[in-house]
């Protein structure tokens, strides 16, 4: 069912939903950016729909809602393992089709990789409803169309932003909050059909270890600075590291938590005793690239990369991931 309603009316719906849900959308944090007099756009809770940034891509993906950057797994009191209290409220996330596809990739790793489920992810994931932002124009560096992630049906509601809001909602649980607002219209969301950036995907059948030794990776050894921005802004990078701490002021108590890890960052492969792999930054670029457009597919049947282009937006050294994919394809030939 689709409804057309004013922003004011929608804000009333949001107020109603807020009793039950935490509502996340890209928001602008003015003047807090990396450079002076620049803003940060990233996910945060909103009260009114106007707080949402619609004309700019969020610098960080919504993955941090489902997979927090720092997440406590256990609290320790003496020698007992205590799980943190579960959040009661459910979650609504405003996000674009590429990011919805990204969540499917996170599901693959946290819920379907191996026989055990990651309960911390699962508990959050079960609470989440997607409010899809209709995205027909895209932004710089987006290549969702090439990745086939420009379109999706997996949403509770889809929203077109115009003079008024047009909302297609599929989830009956949402109906009560909308009751009495707007008028019924015919609407199904449109999807972007062409990005400025187009990527030709490699024929994964032709990829073997000889690609890993190609000269193309050497260039990245010189260019990459191993900062990890591409990993951290990525919607699908899901690696993490465990950390145990004893509280400074009460060393008998402490916690175990996990934090995001990135395969570009020093220490990612270092084992106790000092041995590590991929000391060379070009090898890290190769490892990440292969995961996004080759080996994840080999394991799970579809590509990991969703073409959001945030890695390209974020790289301080202007390394383009989409261009890297094209280079791979140039060597091994295009996917049929």
């Amino acid at each position, binding site marked *: 069912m689709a409804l057309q309603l004013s922003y004011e009316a929608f804000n009333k719906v949001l107020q109603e939903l807020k009793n039950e849900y935490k509502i996340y959308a890209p928001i602008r944090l003015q003047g*807090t*950016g*990396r450079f*002076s007099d620049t803003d940060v756009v990233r996910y945060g809770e909103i009260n009114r729909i106007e707080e949402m940034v619609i004309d700019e891509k969020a610098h960080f993906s919504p993955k941090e809602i489902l997979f927090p950057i720092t997440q406590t797994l256990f609290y320790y009191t003496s020698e007992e393992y205590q799980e943190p209290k579960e959040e009661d409220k459910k979650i609504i996330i405003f996000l674009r089709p590429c990011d919805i596809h990204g969540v499917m990739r996170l599901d693959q790793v946290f819920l379907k990789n191996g026989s055990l489920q990651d309960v911390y992810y699962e508990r959050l994931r079960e609470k989440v409803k997607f409010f899809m932002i209709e995205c027909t124009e895209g932004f710089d560096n987006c290549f969702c169309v090439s990745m086939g992630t420009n379109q999706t049906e997996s949403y509770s509601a889809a929203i077109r932003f115009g003079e008024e809001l047009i909302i297609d909602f599929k989830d009956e649980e949402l109906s009560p909050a909308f009751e009495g607002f707007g008028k019924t219209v015919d609407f199904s969301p449109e999807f972007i059909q062409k990005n400025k950036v187009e990527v030709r995907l490699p024929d994964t059948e032709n990829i073997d270890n000889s690609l890993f030794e190609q000269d193309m990776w050497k260039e990245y050894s010189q260019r990459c600075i191993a*900062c990890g921005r591409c990993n951290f802004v990525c919607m699908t990078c899901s690696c993490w590291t465990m950390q145990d701490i004893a509280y*400074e002021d009460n060393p008998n108590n402490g916690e175990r938590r996990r934090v*995001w*890890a990135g395969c570009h*960052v*020093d220490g990612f492969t270092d084992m106790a005793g000092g041995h590590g792999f991929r000391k060379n930054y070009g090898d890290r670029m190769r490892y990440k690239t292969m995961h996004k457009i080759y080996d994840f597919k080999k394991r799970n049947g579809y590509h990991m990369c969703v073409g959001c282009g945030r890695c390209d937006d974020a790289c301080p050294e202007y390394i383009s991931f989409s261009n890297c994919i094209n280079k791979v394809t140039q060597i091994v030939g295009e996917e049929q």
Partner: protein
Amino acid sequence: MDINTKKIKKNAYRVTKERGKTALRIRVPGGHLEVKYFDIIKEIAEKFGDGSVHITIRQGFEVPGIDFDKIPKINRMIAPIIQGLELDYGVNIEEVEQGYPAAGTRNVSACIGNKVCPFANYNTTDLAIKIEKSIFPNDRHVKIACTGCPNDCIKAHMQDFGIIGQVEPVYDASRCVGCEACVKNCKKRVTGALRMENYKVKRDEDRCLGCGECILKCPTGAWSRNPEKFFRVVIMGRTGKRNPRLAETFLEWVDEATVIKIIQNTYDFIESYIDKEAPGGKEHIGYIVDRAGYYTFKEYALKDVTLGPKAKVAQYIDFGGYKYERNVYFDKNSK
């Protein structure tokens, strides 16, 4: 030839080594200007000068080889520059067609600032213009420069007032992945104000310069900017023939209003303490502070200033520098 050299100097012209020739100096507050003004400078240099222009260390232009009698005409020609780079900024100049009314307080210079530079913590040109507006025209000899960060590309440490941009880094531990990029960088390139504790970062506020490198290095946005702008003010640096020295920190973590107010207040201090018998009535502010003492200067400078909660004031300054001849400080003829 009958030239009142006092008058033409005040008008921003100078007596040159070549008899009969003068040079025009053009102020560019904040060191940034629209290129349209180049056309005027070019025309003056080609028609009345020797076809060349010198770019001064203070970010002005000096057009040499001009006949003294061309001054009134040139003053009319530079009216659009004075209009655009002074009056439009709010500087109070009564006669736009009579050239610059003073030359004592030098052009307020600035590094490229946050218009372009990733390190800069504020718009240096904008602040330079605000300072220009509050102190020019003035005959007192004061040099001021604005620089975006402690890299100090404008050499604020060589000025009477050097305004260095500071940013308060705000840390969100929950966004920190413990990559240590900020810690390693601060140790290698700054003051080592950061350290790891329990996989998260601790900042030593006393060591932190407010340069913002940690924010630049952070890949997750755990470090972000306090949008409020802060400044460190270094004072009384100088070159010259008696006692060259780098400026020393007077204030830290002060706001823009404070910066402007203390500079304004300094002019009152100069009026009270300048050596009335100084040659040509000119005495450089640094030497006045040397005689009157830092404490007295501070009292004047901070008059009616309300410092913010983060502000720090130097209790004592040891200016140091070196002296070419210690006897210059002894008056052998006095009692």
